């Protein structure tokens, strides 16, 4: 088993993506192959299949007007599910707006994720034991908050990590740098993941920075930076697992850059990627599909076949249907409840508005 040298990675971040599986699902780095049981390998792959189906279903449901805001995730299954699979339920997740799959696999019921998409407060009411906050819309804000959650975890003496995601464009934000730098200065248990899918809406990654990699931005905070093949679930998993272990041991934060690609538009709110991407480029990345690679690997081990995939696909479709039933049976939101949720100790001026809206709503 290859152990990453995190002290060395502080001085010299990787400038080539680490890889375990090639495009044909063959193991190219036996030393970095994670020590996962057959069941775990299948479980991780199922999460990727789940994410792809949920993405496709969500896209359709959005087009039918049954869901709202959605940032497509297909192409990023290895990056999202591979990294999330290495984390613990008691780790604290600060997701970006594209990181709904991680949130659901971290414990948020799917129907609540759908309500978040539709814009209903019930999607954001999290039980205390769910170590997460709703997806962050302000790019970079999750990074500075992660530093705070991580410092809190450290002060509470818990063996856990705060972990967060942003995209390639997000690395240009001030909060991106501040978050990593604060966590570094406090040796706080934080994991910063950059999902580099080559575009921030229409702006290519090369226009964000002249830096050769995004992983090297970790150097400015004095923390290890690692670039990994983000279409390779096993590489993403193993790098994240080792990073988490190193962080929990009290060594401070780590930043991981996953090289990935979104097949769909930036969001379903009108973006057309054909304005700024070529078909050739898209085809090239489709040939690099994270599901195909992992499927071939599992089939080679006799752990997966078409029948299993068909059965599982039917199961996920049913899960989506069940979630939509709950979504569509939610009561309408009340302004009086918004006002009641605003403060713990409601100021008198707000109480007057609550009383006023309650009267209107009773009519």
């Amino acid at each position, binding site marked *: 088993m290859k152990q990453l040298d995190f002290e060395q990675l502080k001085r010299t971040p990787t400038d080539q993506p680490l890889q375990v599986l090639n495009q044909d699902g063959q193991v190219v780095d036996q030393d970095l192959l994670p020590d996962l049981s057959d069941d775990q390998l299948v479980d991780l792959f199922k999460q990727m299949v789940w994410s792809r189906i949920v993405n496709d279903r969500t896209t359709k449901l959005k087009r039918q007007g049954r869901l709202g805001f959605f940032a497509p995730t297909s192409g990023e299954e290895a990056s999202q599910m591979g990294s999330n699979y290495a984390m613990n339920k008691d780790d604290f997740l600060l997701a970006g707006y594209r990181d709904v799959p991680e949130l659901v696999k971290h414990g948020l019921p799917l129907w609540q994720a759908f309500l978040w998409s539709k814009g209903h407060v019930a999607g*954001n009411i999290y039980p205390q034991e769910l170590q997460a906050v709703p997806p962050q819309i*302000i790019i970079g804000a999750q990074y*500075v908050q992660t530093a705070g959650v991580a410092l809190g975890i450290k002060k509470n003496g818990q063996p856990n990590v705060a972990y967060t995601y942003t995209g390639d464009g997000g690395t240009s934000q001030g909060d991106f740098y501040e978050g990593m730098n604060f966590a570094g200065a406090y040796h706080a248990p934080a994991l910063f993941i950059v999902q580099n899918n080559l575009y921030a809406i229409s702006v290519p990654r090369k226009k964000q920075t002249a830096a050769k990699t995004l992983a090297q931005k970790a150097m400015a905070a004095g923390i290890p930076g690692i670039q990994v093949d983000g279409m390779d679930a096993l590489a993403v998993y193993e790098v994240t697992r080792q990073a988490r272990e190193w962080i929990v041991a009290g060594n401070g934060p780590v930043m991981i850059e996953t090289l990935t690609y979104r097949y769909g538009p930036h969001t379903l709110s009108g973006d057309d990627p054909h304005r700024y991407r070529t078909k050739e480029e898209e085809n090239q990345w489709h040939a690099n599909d994270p599901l195909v690679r992992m499927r071939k690997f599992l089939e080679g081990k006799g752990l997966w076949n078409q029948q299993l995939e068909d059965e599982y696909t039917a199961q996920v479709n049913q899960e989506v249907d069940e979630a939509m039933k709950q979504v569509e049976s939610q009561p309408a939101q009340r302004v009086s409840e918004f006002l009641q949720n605003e403060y713990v100790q409601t100021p008198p001026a707000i109480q007057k508005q609550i009383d006023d809206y309650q009267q209107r709503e009773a009519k």
Partner: protein
Amino acid sequence: MAKMTMVKAITAALDEELSRDPKVLVFGEDVGKNGGVFRATDKLQEKHGKDQVFDTPLAESGIIGLSNGLALQGFRPVPELQFFGFVFEAFDEIAGQLARERFRMGGSRKMPVTIRSAFGGGVNTPELHSDSFEGLVAQVPGLRVVCPSGPYDAKGLLISSIRSDDPIVFLEHMKAYRSFKEEVPDDAYTVPLDKAGIKREGKDVTIITYGYMVRLALQAADELAKEGIDAEVLDLRTLAPLDEDTILASVKKTGRVVLVQEAQKQAGVSANVAALIAEKGILSLGAPVARVASPDTPYPFAQAEKAWLPNKQDIINQVKETVQF
């Protein structure tokens, strides 16, 4: 009971709360060993340790982001922004994040954060130290904006703020830090949030103000009394949301109102108070609501503060005009 300055009263409040609750954390730029640029956190790190009182890197968004994350982990952060003119660096973390978190999570989390920050003119600071930006945060739903006018209120309001489970921006006027003393009880006590204070009772006119202007208003009222004008001085204390009842009761009593703020006329919170009176107190008025405020330019160069800031005479002149309307 001891006579103390406002800055000492603030230190005393922080000291009390750090002792009372180990989840209270005080942090910011130079608040640790240095004890703060105004000594507001003097010796607190020595007494309570580096886990509870600590310095941060120089980055305001990072500081409030840190607060927000710590609050999500069950702490009660009391971060400091060295000067409120630097609030823009942290505006998303305050207005976009902190103020909304409880609301956006449907009440399933609380954010007990008290942001302390110095502001206010009259002490010849360099650029962007003295600006009155309270109006910006007063427009943000989910926040409380608290501004004490002197030592007694400062201690009681700060203790109330830290104990509150809601986010608070606590603004400390630099001129009020050391320019006068008041009797302040030794033990912990609270001054209620959301409640204005009548600092001087009167029957002819209500001067509604906050921050250092309260002191000027009281001095103006003393002089006006010699001329037979009996002014009531109302200190808002919580600038947002407003204490509507106390404001309207005073307006009803006197029938005349002069709003005084240090901020520019287009800024501050006086326009909100005027609108409230127009909505709910207009039938009590015997004269138009008047405003004393700074001119609508950016905060002046230090040498021009005297010409620019509202002063006691401005208040006296406006009160006379309103009373004689």
